[in-house]
């Protein structure tokens, strides 16, 4: 027995140069976790927060009660959207490296989160995404040219140059504007869902944070308010193991899974294999149906791995083994769905190669078009007058004066 309390500093299992070690991840066999009815009382299903819902087994076969039995067409569409997200990311990452855009964030390795979950919601449901949910925007018909134009802050930028890259929005398709502040959108999603219930509508809301952001107060506010008002909302934690340089233990993930954060409030938690598109879809569909039918919120933890750097400003080789992803026991979401489709006889390597080629061409063409609307260094540029708009519904006098002053300095007519 030690005599004094000792400060515990959580340590990742492996640092650069060491062998990756994911022994800390509690895994369940594919098909092993039961699927309760969507109206099951929260108290009886607490085990879902600590087990791991998986559908695809080692041989890429779908098994168990969570198999959503999606048709071939839907699965191929899901694969296409995941590949498109990855190809888009590759291109944009490269464009940042070439200095064409100021910043970028990839979703490499986490594509099944946005695509699997996005497919499980209805068009009228409101999404409050985090910054690694570009797949949701792609899935919800945001044009690649628009997304690229935003990253370029060019004359077609959906945000009129107000935000740094990757903070997309698409109001028409119920995609909220992304905030760079962590977890702030979580209580907002709960509020939106409360509003839906107040208005007597059956639309639900969904929001995403990473494992690191669960430490923010807003995460806990959101859970409390969602539980108190039984808001029709699906709250998601993308646990990609890393919050920039700190592993998930620093966010408090060492002893209890993030899915269990809501149990004390009576919010069901489900921990799911985040790289298994079938399981991700199925669990999200369950939570969405539960919310839509008045069953209140669900907290879903998607266990995945951040395959790339946090952002283009980050260098993960300084804090984690270079090859860590290769050892991640839940593999690569794109490859797993591909193998599943191949095994089922719906897909082939040839088709996959052709798809990748086609999507690269799509992305290349979109980039060429986006550049015609300008870049950070090439015209057409955004009108500088836009800087003073949208601060308020109508421009107040002091902003009008400041705008005119700037135009005077620039020698332009007001």
């Amino acid at each position, binding site marked *: 027995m030690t005599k004094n309390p000792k400060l515990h500093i959580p340590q990742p299992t492996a640092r650069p140069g060491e062998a990756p070690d994911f022994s800390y991840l509690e895994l369940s066999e594919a098909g092993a976790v039961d699927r309760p009815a969507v109206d099951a009382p929260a108290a009886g299903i607490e085990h879902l927060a600590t087990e791991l819902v998986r559908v695809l087994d080692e041989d890429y076969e779908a098994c168990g009660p969570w198999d959503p039995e999606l048709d071939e067409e839907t699965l191929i569409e899901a694969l296409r959207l995941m590949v498109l997200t990855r190809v888009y990311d590759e291109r944009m990452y490269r464009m940042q490296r070439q200095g064409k855009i100021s910043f970028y964030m990839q979703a490499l390795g986490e594509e099944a989160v946005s695509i699997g979950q996005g497919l499980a919601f209805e068009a009228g449901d*409101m999404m409050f995404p985090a910054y690694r949910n570009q797949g949701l925007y792609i899935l919800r018909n945001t044009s690649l040219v628009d997304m690229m134009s935003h990253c370029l802050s060019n004359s077609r*930028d*959906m*945000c*009129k140059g*107000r*935000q740094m890259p990757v*903070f997309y*929005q698409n*109001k028409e398709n119920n995609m*909220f*504007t992304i*905030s760079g*502040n962590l977890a*702030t959108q*979580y*209580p*907002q*999603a*709960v*509020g*939106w*869902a*409360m*509003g*839906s219930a*107040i*208005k007597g509508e059956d639309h639900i*809301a969904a929001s995403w944070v990473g494992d690191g952001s669960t430490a923010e*107060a*807003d995460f806990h*506010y*959101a859970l*409390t*308010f969602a539980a*108190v008002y039984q808001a029709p909302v699906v709250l998601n934690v993308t646990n990609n193991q890393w919050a920039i340089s700190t592993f998930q233990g620093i966010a408090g993930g060492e002893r209890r899974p993030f899915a269990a954060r809501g149990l004390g409030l009576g919010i069901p938690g489900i921990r799911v294999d985040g790289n298994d598109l079938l399981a991700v879809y199925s669990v999200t569909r369950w939570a969405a149906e539960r919310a839509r039918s008045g069953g209140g919120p669900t907290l879903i933890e998607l266990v995945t791995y951040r395959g790339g750097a946090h952002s283009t400003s980050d260098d993960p080789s300084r804090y984690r083994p270079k090859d860590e992803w290769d050892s991640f026991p839940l593999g690569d979401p794109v490859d797993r769905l591909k193998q599943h489709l191949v095994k089922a006889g719906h897909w082939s390597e040839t088709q996959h190669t052709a798809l990748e080629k086609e999507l690269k061409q799509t992305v290349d063409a979109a980039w060429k078009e986006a550049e015609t609307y300008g870049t950070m260094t090439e015209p057409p540029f955004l009108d500088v007058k836009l800087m003073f*708009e*949208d*601060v*308020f*519904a109508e421009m*107040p*006098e*002091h902003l009008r004066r400041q705008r005119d002053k700037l135009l005077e300095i620039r020698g332009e007519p007001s």
Partner: protein
Amino acid sequence: MSQMNMIQAIRSAHDVMLDKDPSVVAFGQDIGYFGGVFRCTDGLQKKYGEHRVIDAPIAEGGIIGTAIGLGINGLRPVVEIQFADYIYPGFDQVVSELSRLRYRSAGEFYSPVTIRTPCGGGIRGGQTHSQSPEGIFTHLSGVKTVMVSNPYDAKGLLIAAIESDDPVVFFEPKRIYNGPFDGDPDKPSVSWSSHPKGEVPDGYYTVPLGKAEIVEEGDDLTIITYGTIVHVAQAAAKAAGVNAEIIDVRSLMPLDVDTLRDSVNKTGRAMVAHEATRFCGYGAELVATIQKECFWALEAPISRVTGWDTPYPHAFEWQYFPIQKRLVDGIRKLMEVE
């Protein structure tokens, strides 16, 4: 018309708007069943139901965060933060989200949240029930900030705030909820019944955001103030025997520069007074504005009377507070400048 104190006027504004617009919802701690710790929403839950007047958990960040979501979904939330001293857990949602939502989304998204909050001292509330944090909010770009000084304005401005598509932080000096305070702590409290601004229309009306009010016309000097100090300034001017023009700024952001400028250009002397601490306080913006707009008309340096730069004390409340005597001294010094 009815005689109303500020609490009744604020309740009436809620009542009018809950009745007029089905998208209006009131949200906050103790505001529903109980009717609010200051009774500003008394009886409204019974009248409009639990889905329109909603009791919230004790989590200001959660209240403001979810209110933003309600607003994004087409509702018009009127939030009560029980004391301005407790607004800070929700501050990030105001600074990083509410104030910039319209801007960052190029006008696509906005949330018309009104945040009401009792503020200010003079009630023996010490450092946790007396603060005046308006200057922190006026420094933001994208929220409007109001501080009211009487029942008539409180109702009219609150309705205007609720109807505004911009977010509004609405400060209610709790010292004057039940009656004006002339800044003499030794005198017994008075009620609003003898004050002309205690006469309030029963139905709908608005007082526009962005407009100051000249509450006393005069030509010796201009006193620019807001909230409780409006009444202190009126009494102080009388006690000092000067013919002061007293301006109630009311709408701190956006600021009615024209009214300030015209007055100081006329009087040539200006005093700025508020309860809040001095350093980087809202008064500094007023001083800078007057200096820029009225420099050639000024006959004396612009004077400031404010709370001291200490946390709000308990025992020394009347030494801290800009009471009538301090304003009288300030006025005399300002008038002495040749």
